[in-house]
């Protein structure tokens, strides 16, 4: 059946969510407007800025380029959930310590993107960090401090292993 409004069921940050939604609603707007999870930011709305980055079934995606209806049956994680579990506490602390954020608009997407890199590559070079974060715009820091923070966390996590 094709419908303008669809019933969806998913988990968001571990909690079951069931809603009837407009098919045209993006995942980012659904999270912000329907679930009040405003840590997911909406910037360019066409995939360039990365501020809307969230995790769907364990991989990062653009929240503005995925429709909420497509997440039926999926496991969605936002910066709120990933913060609460403590998974990225060290990254968040490193960002704060090194001034890797100023206005904070890009930070949720930056953190989730950095976390995906560190999960797949325990010792990324600075070039690799820059490449992996290339889809996330920051208009405050000039990126240097962000790369520093990610690199520092990679080293610290390796030291703990």
């Amino acid at each position, binding site marked *: *059946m*094709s*419908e*303008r409004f*669809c019933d969806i069921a998913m988990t968001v940050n571990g909690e079951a969510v069931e809603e009837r939604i*407009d*098919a*045209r609603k*993006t995942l980012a*707007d659904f999270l912000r407007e329907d679930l009040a999870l405003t840590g997911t930011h909406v910037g360019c*709305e*066409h*995939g360039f800025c*990365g501020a809307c*980055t969230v995790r769907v079934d364990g*991989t*990062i*995606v*653009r929240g*503005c*380029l*995925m*429709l909420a*209806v*497509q997440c*039926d049956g999926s496991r969605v994680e936002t910066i709120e959930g990933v913060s609460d579990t403590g998974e990225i506490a060290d990254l968040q602390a490193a960002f704060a310590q090194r001034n890797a954020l100023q206005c904070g608009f890009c930070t949720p997407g930056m953190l989730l*993107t950095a976390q*995906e*890199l560190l999960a797949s590559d325990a010792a990324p070079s600075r070039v690799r960090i*820059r*490449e*992996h974060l*290339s*889809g*996330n715009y920051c208009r405050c820091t000039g990126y240097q401090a962000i790369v520093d923070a990610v690199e520092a966390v990679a080293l610290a996590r390796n030291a703990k292993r």
Partner: protein
Amino acid sequence: MKPAPFAYAKARSLDHALALVGAEPDAKILAGGQSLVATLNMRLSAPPLLVDINGLGELGKVARRGDWLEIGALVRQRDAERDAEIARSAPLIARALPHIAHPAIRNRGTIGGSVAFADPAAELPACVVALGGELDIRGPNGRRAVKAAEFFKGLFETALGPGEILTAIRVPAARGDDRFGFAELARRQGDYALIGLAAKARAAGVSLRDFSLVYFGVGAMPVRARGAEKALADGDIEGAVAALADDLRPEDDVHATAAARQHLAGVLLRRVIGQMRGASS
């Protein structure tokens, strides 16, 4: 901006998807959505119906079939990047994939979507043309295969007709004597290319022959540089760079002037020839 209203249907099978798009001529296929949803958000496109083909496992496979490698249209770019069979049988595609946008986008974006969308600055259309590939299409009249060289018709225009769905791309599997080269220039890693070049040749002793040079970002669709290919067949690199002046007709845009692109075409050609002369292709 936000998309205009549309109806949404999740296809349960390829036949179901064909029936849905057959019943609504202006329907759009939703695969990875990484270009489509952006155009919806900007209201450059306002289809009445989206037919979501995510979940059609039959379109998500990579398979070696004799001398050909077949990549299902729904294979995600990020999965393709890590696929051992693609690395082995289609090294040109493997080399091009990391240049497509950014990791979060490649996690969703599909091989077929990139080819069917036919962005003139996209990597995969140029690769399938350079490799002499074919596109598998299903539609109301059954199955057909179209040569990549005949698939791209113009700016965002392809041979796909109403009610048709691209189901797979197929490229000749790499042989031991094949040599591949790939290079592109973008202001930022992952941005659309200012200009790029996908190339294939065959090694014959110490020389290379049977060149296929396909540029992207310099026209409405992938452009084969036949004059340069001919010069290279005679071993004349300077002649090949000069021939690009006739082969390519780049235009000015906000990203680069035509003259800059023309110059960069020669830079890329020299780089790619260097790659192909290297032992590991």
